[in-house]
């Protein structure tokens, strides 16, 4: 099997950093999912694609724009009209979807090697992310499981809330290291731990 290498490696320093004398308020880590897949439905085929997502992952997408759900192993969220990002700890998600999402329903794009998934958690997670993205991170506006597409300095980011104070951020692999460094710098003043 091919060994996965992280683009963050040269800048990934496990331990506590920054101003942590008064406690660590941010936990940063890389979730390293085995599969990241992007699905798109042709116009009018959205419901069939949502049914296919349920067949393959067992996850039932809630109604509405940006709706999503995560069971801790698999995650899915809408990021654009009729388009969804699905991640799984296991490999082989794209092949599983290719069998179910026929060419009449939509498309499957395997991004497992194209995106890096960074998890930020802790009581100050919303506060740190608010430095990066001009969107509302409060729980009522950004409910658990939901996804958002936005950008930081023209670098796309897809963000899913996977806990009350936890977010998974999917960024381009080639920009991941610089984004990670920026995230570390932004977390310094509240103290962060890399796990």
């Amino acid at each position, binding site marked *: 099997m091919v060994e996965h290498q992280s683009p963050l490696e040269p800048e990934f320093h496990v331990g506590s950093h920054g101003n942590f004398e008064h406690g660590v308020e941010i936990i940063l880590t890389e979730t390293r999912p085995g599969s990241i897949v992007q699905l798109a439905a042709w116009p009018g085929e*959205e419901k069939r694609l949502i049914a296919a997502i349920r067949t393959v992952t067992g996850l039932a997408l809630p109604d509405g724009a940006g709706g999503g759900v995560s069971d801790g192993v698999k995650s899915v969220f809408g990021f654009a009209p*009729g388009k969804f990002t699905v991640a799984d700890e296991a490999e082989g998600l794209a092949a599983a979807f290719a069998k179910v999402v026929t060419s009449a329903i939509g498309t499957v794009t395997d991004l497992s090697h194209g995106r890096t998934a960074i998890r930020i958690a802790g009581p100050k997670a919303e506060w740190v992310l608010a430095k990066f993205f*001009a*969107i509302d991170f409060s729980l009522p506006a950004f409910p658990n499981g939901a996804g958002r597409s*936005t950008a930081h300095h023209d670098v*796309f980011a897809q963000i899913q809330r996977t806990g009350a104070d936890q977010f998974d951020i999917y960024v381009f692999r080639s920009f991941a290291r610089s984004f990670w460094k920026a995230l570390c710098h932004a977390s310094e003043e509240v103290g962060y731990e890399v796990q």
Partner: protein
Amino acid sequence: MLITCPYCGPRDVIEFTYQGDGNRERPDPASQNFEAWNAYVYDRLNPAGDHNEIWQHSGGCRAHLKVVRNTLTHEISSVAFARGDHGSAARHKAEDKA
């Protein structure tokens, strides 16, 4: 300036790309009606007031949007998917402006 994307909700204008005047009607590509082509390429209303525009949410869901913007006040009075309604995808209406 905030634009309320029908999918993503209110977002800063920095996430959007202006795609031009929304009043233009492209002639049939085979058309030899030069006046129609001239109008499509050059004629603009340039109103001092409400203006139909096409914007793309390029830093978000990447949908193309029909926007009515007031050129005097920058007030956005209407935002809709340029391709028509995406079924239940539309969550935010223009009046939900933050």
